[in-house]
């Protein structure tokens, strides 16, 4: 009970502090933009800890964040091995292949209005294919190791990036294209000097969506067969053997990896599309 009350009081207090911080004169400042969500995250953890302890939730159902932290620091070896298997090998390879293939395909089909018109609706269609249906098929085609995970990731990220890139390539306005015409510029010149730079904000939109998909794809695919390592492997066996603390440690790694991956893409986006109004400040 005391835990519950504490968690609730802490929550209200932190919220009030955040409200004050956000509306104060530091509100627009970089440090406040980081502090506020961090404080909010800490509040969630405290609330969680309080609920688990206060309600006496069984550790095989939900573990307290403090326990997860202990497990995390005690199993860095395993977590690192899994991270390498799932993120570095499975997700990143798939992401790289998938996005490269999507970019090249986008440039190729963009030359034909007919192909674009035909491929985009089909692409949306394929993007709605449930991963749990594709994963067993691809595991059976590409084997148990990270290659099949990469294949799943390729399938998942290909179309979001393709659709966004194609849209971006047509995003140049008529006047910008006419300008190139008045210079009698060739196809390649127009592509590299106008259309690709102009498409970049859209490409990055697709890449950002793809980052979260990539990680989830690699993890879920491991449910359908894997070597005895990997984040998905650990999560599924962890649930089965009631090592919920380890499961949460893996989820934690997934969240950190996913968020950093997203953050890195956003950072590159900021450098590449510095000129776009949404990036200026």
């Amino acid at each position, binding site marked *: 009970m005391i835990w519950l009350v504490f968690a609730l009081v802490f929550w209200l207090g932190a919220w009030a502090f955040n409200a004050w911080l956000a509306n104060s004169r530091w509100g627009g400042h970089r440090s406040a933009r980081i502090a506020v969500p961090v404080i909010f995250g800490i509040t969630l953890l405290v609330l969680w800890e309080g609920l688990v302890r206060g309600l006496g939730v069984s550790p095989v159902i939900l573990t307290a964040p403090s326990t997860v932290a202990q497990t995390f620091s005690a199993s860095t070896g395993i977590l690192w091995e899994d991270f390498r298997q799932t993120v570095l090998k499975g997700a990143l390879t798939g992401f790289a292949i998938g996005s490269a293939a999507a970019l090249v395909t986008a440039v190729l089909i963009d030359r034909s209005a007919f192909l674009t018109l035909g491929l985009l609706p089909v692409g949306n269609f394929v993007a709605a294919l449930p991963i749990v249906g594709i994963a067993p098929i691809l595991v059976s085609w590409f084997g148990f190791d990270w290659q099949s995970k990469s294949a799943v990731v390729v399938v998942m990220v290909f179309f979001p990036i393709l659709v966004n890139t194609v849209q971006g390539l047509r995003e140049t*306005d008529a*006047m*910008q294209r*006419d*300008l*190139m*015409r*008045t*210079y*009698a*510029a060739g196809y390649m*010149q127009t592509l590299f*000097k*106008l259309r690709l*730079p*102009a498409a*970049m904000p859209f490409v990055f939109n697709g890449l950002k969506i793809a980052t979260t998909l990539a990680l989830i794809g690699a993890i879920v695919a491991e449910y359908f067969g894997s070597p005895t390592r990997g984040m998905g492997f650990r999560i599924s066996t962890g649930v089965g053997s009631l090592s919920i603390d380890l499961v949460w440690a893996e989820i934690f790694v997934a969240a950190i990896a996913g968020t950093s991956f997203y953050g890195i893409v956003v950072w590159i986006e900021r450098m590449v*599309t*510095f*000129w*776009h*109004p949404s990036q*200026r400040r």
Partner: protein
Amino acid sequence: MTIQPGISAPVISAKGLDLTFQTGDGPVHALRDVSLDIGKGEFVSFIGPSGCGKTTFLRVMADLEQPTAGQITVNGTSPEAARKARAYGYVFQAAGLYPWRTIGGNIRLPLEIMGYDRADQDARVARVLDLVELGGFEKKYPWQLSGGMQQRASIARALAFDADILLMDEPFGALDEIVRDHLNEQLLKLWDRTNKTICFVTHSIPEAVYLSTKIVVMSPRPGRITDVIDSPLPRARPLEIRDTPEFLEIAHRVREGLRAGHAYDD
């Protein structure tokens, strides 16, 4: 309708041009039976109500639009050949700078495409930047400059390479009067010095009269030429010329020509 014999062999010659856009709402007649000859070194202004086809006519000259009927030659060849020979520089209604390139980079763009060598590029960029008084802004990005400065950069971009013809579509539309006066003066000087042929679209009667050797007045859709006025003003024109009776008389004639075709529904 009126065919004006050019001062020398015509640089641009249009005969019976028609242009109809096919749109969802049916056909839009943008140009109807337009004939015009423009001689070398002329400064021709096009004036007319909004939507009358001024931009369309300029775009036909630039091979950005295909006429549905009639003939047009540019430098004695087809507009397409002229475009491929990079015979003209085009200044669009909006500056249209690429936001991912600096001002210098934007001006360099046509030079890169046309394969000028690097040293030549640098020299030309520096020269035209000075010409439009943007020295020192080479490294800035377009959005860091005011609208007027952007417009000047876009003019510099069209001047950077050697084209004898300059097609300008309301280049000063977005500027305030003082800056506009100043740029008008500069443009006249440039024209005087280089003997380029300039086609210039504007909404402003004083501007048209001040700049041109020839003023083409157009009527609303379907765009036709209703009057072609050869200016008696001398080539050297101080700003004060705008207060002279000759100037006011031409301006009056242009205004009458414009008002004739107008129905107040726009």
